[in-house]
């Protein structure tokens, strides 16, 4: 098909009316944060603030004691359950990101662990 033939296709060069606008404009859109389900928990991913740093240890004691925290999972837990690395959403064959190499953070901001807690906020935190 030559370039000029595209003009004959339906909707080419035409303004289309969006079907989703009404719900977005009236507050009826449903985003991830709007979903509320029974016994729902929230996960936070904690990332390393340092690139290529050696992880000597991760101390979760204080975080685990915080009100509402259900569990904290780091690379060791993930490896123990044979979950493997977290898959990347895009096709990058060269490298699958480890959840936590335990000894080294390969990039700035790999996921060092997930923290699950019940109420989303307590005391504004």
């Amino acid at each position: 098909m030559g370039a000029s033939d595209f003009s004959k296709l339906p909707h080419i060069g035409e303004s289309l009316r969006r079907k989703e606008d009404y719900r977005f404009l009236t507050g009826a859109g449903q985003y991830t944060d709007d979903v509320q389900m029974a016994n729902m928990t929230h996960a936070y991913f904690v990332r390393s603030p340092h690139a290529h740093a050696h992880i000597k240890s991760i101390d979760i004691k204080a975080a685990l004691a915080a009100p509402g925290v259900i569990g904290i999972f780091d690379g060791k837990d993930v490896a123990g359950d044979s979950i493997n690395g977290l898959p990347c959403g895009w096709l990058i064959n060269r490298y699958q990101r480890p959840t936590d190499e335990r000894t080294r953070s390969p990039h700035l901001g790999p996921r060092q662990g997930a923290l699950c807690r019940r109420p989303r906020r307590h005391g504004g935190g």
Partner: protein
Amino acid sequence: MQTHLTVNGKSVTVEAAPNTLLVQALREHLHLTGTHVGCDTAQCGACTVIVNGDAVKSCNMLLAQAADAQITTIEGLAKPDGTMHPMQAAFKECHGLQCGFCTPGMVLSAVDLCKKHPNASEQEIREQLEGNLCRCTGYQNIVKAVQHGAAAMKS
């Protein structure tokens, strides 16, 4: 703690902890999830609602501060029969939204702006909407929508 307020014309009483933010009360207690939390730090304006006739960032206000106030959220802007407010219609008409996340706050800020400054110039609209961020960066059409909405609100 009990707080009484009027939300979208309905009288409601919310039972919540004293440190509950207005946005939390709206979203988590009243399930009005059209008001969004974008930044939680009063920068993005996605949580904007109308409190006693003024556009306010509801993540920066305690529920207790809204006691006995008249609140309008995005859910309360259209007519009960579903007909959109002229500003909502203008946003649709001018393609003033893409992902729609900033839209509720953007529309309510625009309504407040055009009520107070019905003849706002393009420059004034841009300045007045400084507190509402659109991460799709659709500002060009948002400004166009506000201009159309302002004209429609006058007629």
